[in-house]
């Protein structure tokens, strides 16, 4: 005689229960599944800091008496104007194209060169001094050299971005590949791996975490290079837009536009961080 009993599903389970929990969670009810509560718990401290900074900024803006310093209210009011401005988006697109080109080239050169340096001791001995110089010395000093050689154009801008990003991508890739256990490479050789297979099956997957970390660092450097070159020498996109706002005394719009740049950077860096986290969890 079977003693199996079919138990009724507990209340709150199933698809309807799951939806209910999400709604409750969104309104902050303890009966929710807690994810929203955890999100706001993590986000609250930085938001509080932001509010404190905004209030402090407002007090300074009022007290300074400097008409060029916008208040937080004025900047927030300018945000929809700037974000809705085709001109601002066009300026951002022009600079983003240089950023994309420069960063992509730096990535396509830096990752293979980093692996080559890790695999070839002779090549490593030749290139390491230059790599170390490039990492330590601010590449901004190379900007005048690039401009003299290439002129005031997008090509020079892209080269500057490459110079900023490439050393960091290369160094991170080289470092990651060098720290891989030698056993993995030898094991693959014992099983007949050719050099390309060592790269594909061991080097790249084994050091992907460090490579992605290097890509994130490289992007930050690329962005620094872009902003530096745009603001100082070759204003093609964001530099030109910032100069326009400045010359028209549109300080609130200028601040809002800077916020737009920062928001874009945060989105890209967050995506790379997410990629890094996912790769690290493998």
């Amino acid at each position, binding site marked *: 005689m079977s003693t199996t009993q079919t138990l009724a599903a507990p209340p709150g389970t199933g698809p309807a229960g799951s939806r209910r929990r999400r709604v409750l969670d969104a309104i902050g009810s303890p009966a929710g599944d807690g994810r929203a509560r955890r999100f706001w718990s993590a986000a609250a401290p930085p938001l509080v800091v932001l509010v404190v900074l905004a209030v402090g900024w407002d007090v300074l803006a009022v007290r300074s008496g400097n008409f060029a310093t916008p208040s937080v209210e004025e900047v927030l009011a300018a945000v929809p104007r700037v974000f809705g401005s085709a001109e601002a988006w066009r300026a951002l697109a022009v600079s983003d194209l240089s950023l994309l080109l420069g960063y992509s080239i730096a990535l396509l050169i830096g990752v293979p060169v980093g692996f080559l340096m890790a695999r070839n001791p002779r090549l490593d001995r030749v290139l390491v001094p230059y790599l170390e110089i490039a990492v330590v010395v601010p590449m901004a000093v190379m900007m005048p050299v690039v401009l003299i050689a290439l002129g005031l154009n997008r090509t020079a801008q892209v080269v500057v971005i490459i110079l900023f990003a490439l050393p960091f991508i290369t160094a991170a890739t080289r470092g990651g590949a060098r720290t891989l*256990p030698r*056993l*993995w490479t*030898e*094991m*693959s*050789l*014992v*099983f*007949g*791996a050719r050099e390309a*297979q060592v790269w594909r*099956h*061991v080097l790249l*997957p*084994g050091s992907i975490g460090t490579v992605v970390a290097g890509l994130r660092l490289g992007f930050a450097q690329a962005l620094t290079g872009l902003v530096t070159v745009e603001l100082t020498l070759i204003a093609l996109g964001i530099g030109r837009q910032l100069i326009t706002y400045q010359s028209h005394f549109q300080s609130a719009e200028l601040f809002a536009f800077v916020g737009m740049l920062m928001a874009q950077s945060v989105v890209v860096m967050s995506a790379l961080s997410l990629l890094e986290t996912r790769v690290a969890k*493998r």
Partner: protein
Amino acid sequence: MSQLQGGTATAARAPEGPADAGRVVVDGVGKTFGGAKARRGRAPVAHAALADVSLTIEPSEFVSIVGPSGCGKTTLLRMVAGLTRPDAGRVLVAGREVTGPGPERSMVFQQAGLLPWLTVMENISFGLRLQGVPAARRAERAAELVHLVQLEGFEQHLPGELSGGMQQRVGLARALAVDPKILLMDEPFGALDEITRRQMQGELLRIWAADRKTSLFVTHSVEEAVVLSDRIIVMGTKPGRVVAEIHVDLPRPRGTDVEETPDFLRLRNEVWQWLDRQL
């Protein structure tokens, strides 16, 4: 029966056919490390890891190498694997000189060397993948070996989710997956606790008995060498060289319970006598 100090000198011969496919000949090999660069304020110091080592491993023979640390056991094994080139002499497999790794040789490492981002099945079939074997055949072969090493249920686990003994089973399965003629094992149980080690010895005896591949096994454990081997090579240090060859005449098939027999004790003591002379 043991061989007096001086080792054996077996001349290389041309391959005579498929029967020679699993024969390994080590012919007067020597290896020196260091010496090219002087340390600050000091003269260059060269270290002779191996000097004039010669031995032959016949097809289907299980040979262990024992010796004190620094006697060159692993260096010798790496030479047979093709990972290290000898400075003198040569290593021949199936009559052909070893110049690098080859598909007829496979290796089990002390630290397993599993790739942590690959599952058990993917690690086992790693060598097959490098050889371009189609995915379906790889999966089939890996499944056979999962069964052989008794890891059913763990096919999709990552190495980090396995115990040390289980990782070594995967390492062994990976080495067997490519169906080598010669199996090289570098202290594969050295990092395991005593209980797991003994269990793995039993597993290896069972697995080896099914296929009887030519095997060269490096170990620090005399008991392990006697349990597993047909012949034991005793090496000495400074420089690394063969000091004795001891034939293990224990009957096969064997289990780890062979350690309780008088013949086992006799052989173990004989090996230790040779080792004691080197210490």
